């Protein structure tokens, strides 16, 4: 017996760990280019990191880009028009310091809209995107009441000429999909983040929060950021800096 049983087990465990790391890395690489037949998986968690210090006053480039991408048009009735993303102005009443931030669905890990939905239409996809299955949404709007971020809109009027990748219809609730159609085709970005980068402001960063190699997870690890209404413990996929 040249090797004790204990040593043999240790060597075995080390070998197993080594093997697991290598395919683990490969898996991440493969998952990046998810094929159309492959289901979204928990290997990913998509999110945004928004730097309010870089978000400019009066700019609505991200809002416009989102609404163009998803074919959202206005009926000139602002109270009922759909809005997937909006600019919020935050002002410190003491100092008068004002800053701006785009607010959309925060893609919570524990979404209150999913908790309250009576039909199961409001759901969270495996990769963390919170969506509405409009096929079974009955338009009760419980989710709109439950959402602490006022992220959802109800469609009050008939819609025609939708974008083929964004079905939208009267009597259902909708909100930011984190450009799920773009993610599924491997664009690896959202319309709002693309627009902000194009403008040179770079206030919105999109990426996979699970993958340690992405810029978003590096910045989340090394820079301060916070959740809106962090007291609710929803673990939002969207985080803010400069608040």
């Amino acid at each position, binding site marked *: 017996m040249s090797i004790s049983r204990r040593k043999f087990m240790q060597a075995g465990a080390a070998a197993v760990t080594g093997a697991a790391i290598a395919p683990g890395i490969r898996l991440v690489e493969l998952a990046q280019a998810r094929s159309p*037949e492959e289901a979204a998986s928990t290997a990913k968690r998509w999110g945004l990191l928004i730097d309010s210090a870089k978000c400019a006053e009066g700019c609505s480039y991200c809002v416009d880009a989102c609404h163009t991408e998803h074919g959202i048009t206005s009926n000139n009735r602002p109270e009922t028009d759909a809005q997937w993303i909006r600019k919020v102005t935050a002002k410190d009443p003491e100092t008068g310091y004002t800053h701006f931030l785009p607010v959309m669905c925060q893609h919570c890990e524990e979404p209150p809209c999913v908790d309250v939905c009576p039909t199961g239409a409001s759901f969270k*996809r495996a990769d963390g995107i919170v969506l509405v299955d409009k*096929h079974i949404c009955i338009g009760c709007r419980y989710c709109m009441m439950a959402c602490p971020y006022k992220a959802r809109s109800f469609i009050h009027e008939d819609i025609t000429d939708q974008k*083929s*990748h964004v079905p*939208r219809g009267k009597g259902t609730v909708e909100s930011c999909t984190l450009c799920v*159609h773009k993610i599924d085709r491997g664009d690896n970005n959202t319309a709002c983040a693309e627009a902000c980068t194009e403008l040179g402001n770079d206030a919105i960063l999109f990426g996979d929060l699970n993958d340690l190699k992405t810029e978003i997870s590096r910045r989340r690890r090394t820079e301060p950021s916070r959740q809106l209404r962090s007291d609710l413990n929803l673990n939002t996929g969207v985080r803010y800096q400069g608040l």
Partner: protein
Amino acid sequence: MMTRFLILFVLLFGFTSTGISVAANAGNTDKSDTIRTPLPIIKITKPGQCVDDTDEMRRNHMNKILHQRDLTVYDGIRTKQYSLKNCVNCHADENTNSVLGKEGFCESCHTYAAVKIDCFSCHTDKRDVKTSVSNKDDNKGNPHQ
């Protein structure tokens, strides 16, 4: 007593067979010029092979797109074969660019069968202009190009 039953039986049988022959005649006239029910207009804009046999598609297209819809919404699987978008891109009318309308591929049959289509209250009934230009879609089955 027995004869009464016999008469009754003969009478009944007689009526039934007359009924059958009338029905058969009505069936024949359907195919003649004196047609009373307008048949659906099935215009095939792009001839060629559909994603499945015609018989299969006529009977079961609704099940196929229902199955696909859940795969797409919940799992993000956007294969082309049974995607509604793919159906519309192929079957939309050349002039109206739509599957609806009196002669539209979907509407004309659904009107005939008196079955309401729900799809197009949310989904667009129009062909994607981008995809219609290039007929050769070889983007690995992803309908969202």
